[in-house]
């Protein structure tokens, strides 16, 4: 069928329908206008982290998911914003958790979260302790160390070589978990900027409709991700 100039064509309509079908159910969010670039991380005003804590988080996530090599790093995906927002909200306050004593923070780690501190308090109290350890061991606070020494210091933290007090024992594990959460969560939470982490690994995000691909065995799914708010990548 030939498209007539100046008139909406049937073919054009069909093309549009196929495109709509391909983004499977995102119709109500299909506007997907180009979002303005968010404020630079250096200009960002944290919701809850103090400047020294923000500096630590920026430096730490840059080593946990570095920017060099293939795939985006935690800085380009704005993981520090995610962490700040999570710590300022219900997660940081442990609002959903049972936080009534008596506490036994030194119990076996297999028994789960047993410190009286919530995640925000854990960051607030552990960062100065770790910075002080970095200063004594490596001469500078964490954020001021060179990347290789930062990696060494994070490894010591992970292995608990500094024998941090039991109340702060979970610090490294939540720092790492929150970093990966920020990398992989929907961009509406502040991280995974531009769905870059999803594009890197090939996760289609909130696409949520694969009936036509179930039987295509061992054939890579071709479409890029969509986000909950309708961004497309």
């Amino acid at each position: 069928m030939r498209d007539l100039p100046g008139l909406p064509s049937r073919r054009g309509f069909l093309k549009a329908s196929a495109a709509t079908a391909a983004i499977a159910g995102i119709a109500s969010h299909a506007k997907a206008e180009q979002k303005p670039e968010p404020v630079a991380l250096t200009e960002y005003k944290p919701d809850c982290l103090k400047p020294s804590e923000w500096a630590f988080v920026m430096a730490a996530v840059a080593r946990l998911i570095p920017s060099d090599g293939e795939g985006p790093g935690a800085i380009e995906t704005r993981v520090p914003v995610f962490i700040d927002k999570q710590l300022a909200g219900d997660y940081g306050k442990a609002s959903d958790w049972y936080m009534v004593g008596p506490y036994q923070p030194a119990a076996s780690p297999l028994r789960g979260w047993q410190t009286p501190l919530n995640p925000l308090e854990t960051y607030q109290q552990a960062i100065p302790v770790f910075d002080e350890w970095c200063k004594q061991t490596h001469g500078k606070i964490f954020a001021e160390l060179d990347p290789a020494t930062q990696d060494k210091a994070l490894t010591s933290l992970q292995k608990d070589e500094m024998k941090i007090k039991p109340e702060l024992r979970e610090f490294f594990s939540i720092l790492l978990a929150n970093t990966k959460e920020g990398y992989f969560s929907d961009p509406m939470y502040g991280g995974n900027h531009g769905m870059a982490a999803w594009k890197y690994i090939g996760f289609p995000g909130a696409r949520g409709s694969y009936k036509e691909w179930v039987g295509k065995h061992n054939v890579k799914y071709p479409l890029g991700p969509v986000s909950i708010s309708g961004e497309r990548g």
Partner: protein
Amino acid sequence: MARTEKKKDVVLVGFGWTGAIMGIELANEGLEVLALERGHDQDTVPNFQYPEMIDELKYGIRYGMMEKPANTTVTIRRSLDEEALPYRSLGTFLLGTGVGGAGTHWNGLNWRPMQSEYKLKSYITEKFGAGVMTEDMTIQDYPMTYEELEPHFDRFEKVAGISGTAGNVNGKIIEGGNPFEAPRSDEYPMPAMPSTWDGVKFRDAAKAAGYHPFPSPGGIASKDYKNEYNMQMGPCNHCGFCERYGCYNYSKSSPQTAIIDALKRKKNFEYRVNSEVLRVEKSTDGKTVTGVTYFDHKTGEEVFQPADLVILTAFALNNVHLMLVSGIGQPYDPNTNEGVVGRNYAYQITGGYTLFFKDENFNPFIGTGANGFCIDDFGIDNIDFAKEGFIGGAYWRAGQTNGQPGHTMPLPAGTPSWGAGWKKGIGEWYGHAMSIGAHGSVMSYRGHYLDLDPTYKDRHDRPMLRMTYNWHPNEIRQTQFMKQKMEPVAKSMNPTTMQEGFKKEGAMFDVRPYQTTHNTGGTVTGDDPKTSVLNRYLQSWDCHNLFVMGANTFPQNTQYNPTGMVGGLAYWAAEHIRKDYLPNPRPLV
């Protein structure tokens, strides 16, 4: 007491699968039925709507559909001499809340136990001799037979809308189904779902090894479907968000998709949300119950709700807790092995292999909670307990359920947990891994039980439920046996690399990683009031107008996901309440 409500014929405590089943069955008898739900109201629209529902952070990682430990939790210890500590943040099991309960956020795997599991103790004694059981094992027979339960399994499968391939219809073995299943009177109501590549690879490898693969049976609609209550399901689109999520597509079986809208239309049925039952009230002679007292979270007051018949239809752990705090039945004492409430708590043991294939694409985000293929060749009926040195069995399954990268990111052993090596690892291996799992039974033991915690209280000042549980050597032997049998099957698939995850001797119960929400026992059904809380109709031995549903009725855990058994037992009990109890209320045994 701030308020007393108008008396009802029946009050149901909890509005999930068993509350919905009891609700509709008893409302159909013309009774005035009230369901009290601790949590909020929820339905497919607006609560499970696309795209907001498929938010991994909110629901998959922060557990947005689950009961918050701040509101309700348990304490856990691994032995009688350890101090129990609260389960403060969620990990090993996820307890639901709100209308639909755990039936909204499950994976949908639906089974009937194997034939030997109903009369397990007798089966073991007759076939292998009582000597094969460990001394501390407290397993026992169900007081009803598979043949008695069969029509009720069939009915639940048809109400819930289960897809699958039958392997044994009235004794006739059908190619492609599970040849080891107990004979069923009819096919599954819907054909099996198509499988992703991982399931098909496992099917072929299992077949080549001489085993008998069949599609996983599950409450995921493979086509459009309508059940006896005129409730409808639509075919699943394999979105990969079943477990921890409500289904936005009317494709996963749930109380909402199967029963609740039909029930809401009945004028003699009412449900109240944010209504948390604190205790069941006993009559002065203790032989009956008079109703329940609940906390109305909207008005902030305690309410007495009188009723002729009380049915506990909450999650297993909550049903046991309510019996203990209400003082109905004698609490179990592991030191004397006397008492019944809290006795025979059991969990589930799982293990498996993860296989990595550098050059194959699994598209792990394409999945359902009941995806793939299973084998039952190492099911409990097929194990020689005397020869192998353990009691139990497991079914195996391969079928990806989700590819949500925040909590499902298998990486080869040795991949760093952070840094450049981790980033390289996720780029290389996401989408190139699959797993085979063994889902194993857990027996009941003298030292594994539920009681009231001496230290920690809930927000209503009630003692918390205390769980005493650890991995028993019998289950470790079982899971190590599965590892030994699974390894050659996994190897035969020629992965680039593979790794095992089975519990080893000395493994301690770890509450942090998610394992399973299959908590069973605590108010078990039996023939003897000395070793059971409920008779064969799930009626309290102590108070005849109190019935208790749920996996808490299982004398020991089966090798399967519990929902099929929970649903079948609810229909069994409903029939006996309707036909036998209502015309003449009394102890039925």
